């Protein structure tokens, strides 16, 4: 299981890569492993407002439907258009090519609530068993 050091993590198993007030968001290695083979992704549209801890998209594996929660609030500025055609990317490359959305943050103070890699790894170890 990978937990890249340069990312922040949410309790709903999303990762965030911060670049000023731009946040790239995806699902973690733990999340894709728990879901199993991902076969469908529903994404928001550019311009949509997302609110911290609210669902903004859906991933479905063969067996299960799972919401994707916004780890931070903001406005969607870009979505990964490759994902609907190739949802299996989320199993294969969840931390780079399979990013999900980029949002312009509306409240950078929310960042403080996210976990670093070590804290998230510990969190998943507790949740996994």
């Amino acid at each position, binding site marked *: 299981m990978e937990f890249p050091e340069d990312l922040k993590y949410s309790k709903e198993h999303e990762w965030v890569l911060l670049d000023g007030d731009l946040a790239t968001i995806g699902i973690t290695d733990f999340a894709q492993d728990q879901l*199993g083979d991902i076969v469908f992704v529903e994404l928001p549209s550019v311009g949509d407002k997302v609110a911290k801890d609210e669902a903004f998209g859906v991933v479905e594996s063969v067996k299960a439907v799972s919401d994707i929660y916004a780890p931070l609030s903001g406005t969607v500025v870009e979505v990964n258009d490759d994902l609907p055609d190739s949802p299996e990317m989320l199993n294969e490359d969840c931390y780079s090519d399979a990013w999900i959305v980029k949002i312009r943050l509306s409240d950078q103070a929310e960042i403080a609530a996210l976990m670093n890699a070590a804290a998230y790894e510990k969190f998943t170890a507790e949740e996994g068993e």
Partner: protein
Amino acid sequence: MNRTPLFAQHQQRGARFVDFGGWEMPVQYSGIIAEHTAVRTAAGLFDVSHMGEIELRGPGALAAAQELTANDVGRLADGQAQYSLLLLPSGGIVDDIMVYRLSAERLLLCVNAGNAEKDLAWIRDHAGTAEVVDRSAETALLALQGPRATAILARLAAADVASLARFACAEVEVAGKPVLAARTGYTGEDGWELYAGNADAAPLWDALLDAGAGDGLAPVGLGARDTLRLEAALPLYGNDLDETTTPLEARLGWVVRLDKPSFIGRAALLAQRAAGVTRKLCGFALDERGIARHDHAIVHDGSEVGRVTSGSQSPTLGKAIGLGYVPPHCADVGTELEIDIRGRRVRATVTPLPFYRRIQAGGS
């Protein structure tokens, strides 16, 4: 929670477990799509020991089975099996089962795990003079399925299994263990269901996986079992069938022998056949992205006409498929439907069943 005699084998192979009707069962090992593909292209080994096994014995066994089941047990010779149904007097389905004629005075009924207790009580109440023996607790069941299944089994079997016909069964030694081997399954592929004593289950499991390693044999969990059976349009009790659905609605009319003089549910089904069914199970494929799931609404001409009973992405076809009950006028192949997926209406078309049919090799 109940565990099968193979629980340690599943742990050792890295299975992820799920609660299935009170049983802690493997849902997947390497991944549902890889396991599904293994069964379609090579072979898969399933632990389905949670299923129930009930025997009818004695001089009254055949007569009891004729009354209890909708198919015609009289068409079975020793060593033959048939798919059948236990029905209520209303025609509703108590369970869908396999019936194996071991001899004229010994019939084995394999029933769904979630129904095993209910079925046992129902069978005991309607068995007439037959003796009813519940063998579930002592019996393990392994399913070896896929185009390579027979070749793998033949390597370990003391008798010639390849010559057994589809739906035949025989008592044979497999890897030195006594097994009732039946050429039946729930995947749409050639394959075998192997009934064995609990103590023999683990050595059989290990021997089969070893024997099939070079063929691509993989352990397969309940996740792929569900996608395999759905592609083959084999119904799942509790999803597609229950006590409120009848065989005529569920496209299982072929199982029901109304020409038998008597069986439980016959009168209701004769009446329903005369009046016509008001709903029918149909298969559909989605024409847009999305996955239909159990209980999503089926919409036709803007109105809800039914509910999805089973739905999944089909690994073989690469698109979402499903089953559901709709009024007969909506069940014809080519009918355009919509599925309400979390408030989004996705276009779907009624398609011929099964969704997947194996290409049969000559002779097998």
